[in-house]
């Protein structure tokens, strides 16, 4: 069972952690994560190796991602996948982000209408 309260303590996620988590909804290795995030963000986010390795290490120690396959003899790249705990956190984080966006949209809309009335 996932303890939702303890998962909530990990919020909010950094942009790096968030993108690594959503990338790992399918099994990928570090290089795969990098390429996927670059593609998802249309080249805006280019992970440096220190940043990516640190994030992978950190998310693994928090139990948000887990080792999917050990590295082979030829390939030192390990494959990871999101855990149930990681999935729970992702849903909570999405709800938080949606709330923020919803509020921002509503207030921007209101402000724009307000300006229109003054003219």
């Amino acid at each position, binding site marked *: 069972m996932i303890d939702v309260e303890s998962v909530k303590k990990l919020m909010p996620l950094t942009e790096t952690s968030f993108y690594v988590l959503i990338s790992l909804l399918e099994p990928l290795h*570090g290089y795969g994560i990098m390429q996927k995030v670059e593609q998802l963000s249309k080249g805006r*986010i*280019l992970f*440096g190796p*220190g*940043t990516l390795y640190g994030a*992978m*290490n950190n998310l693994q120690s928090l139990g948000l991602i887990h080792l999917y396959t050990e*590295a082979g003899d030829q390939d030192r*790249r390990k494959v990871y996948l999101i855990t149930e705990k990681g999935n729970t956190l992702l849903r909570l984080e999405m709800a938080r982000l949606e709330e923020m966006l919803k509020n921002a949209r509503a207030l921007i809309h209101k402000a724009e209408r307000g300006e229109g009335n003054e003219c």
Partner: protein
Amino acid sequence: MSVKQKHVVRFFGLVQEEKEMTWLNQMALSGWYLVRVMFFVYTFEQGEPSDTRYYGDFKTMKQHDIGEYLQVFADCGWKFVCQQGSWYYFSSLFDKNYREVYSNKQSQLEKYRTVLLTLIIPMVMLINSLLILSRRSERSPSFGLDILLFIVFTLLLIAIYSTIRIIGKVTKLQKSVSE
């Protein structure tokens, strides 16, 4: 035909990382590539000059798998050069594919936090040995003990200085992250 090598002795402190890297970059620009670092002795090999960037990353053994770590760097175009203690030296050609080792301040902050945590252990050991030595020197003073005390004291001062400088760096990074 053997590759020409040279050894250079240079002292760089923990807080002179940027200075060290700039020096290594300049060496590569004049055709000398780092192959090894051992106690302030830098070994270089001669090659074609190029605009190469060096980076020293800090990783403690406990937190990682070296093979995978080096692979992630290699995938980003950073070649592993050598290791000294917990410092790993990498180099990358400075071309259109070049990317920073830490692409955001948050992760850079984590690096220096680890450096800081790792400094605490030797510092406690130094303080501890300083106390033991000074107690012994009170009971039976000797020249040898005085020299030892002086060495430990100097090392402690260096450690305290480095710690303060790194705390300054961490605080600065932290500020820019939370803004």
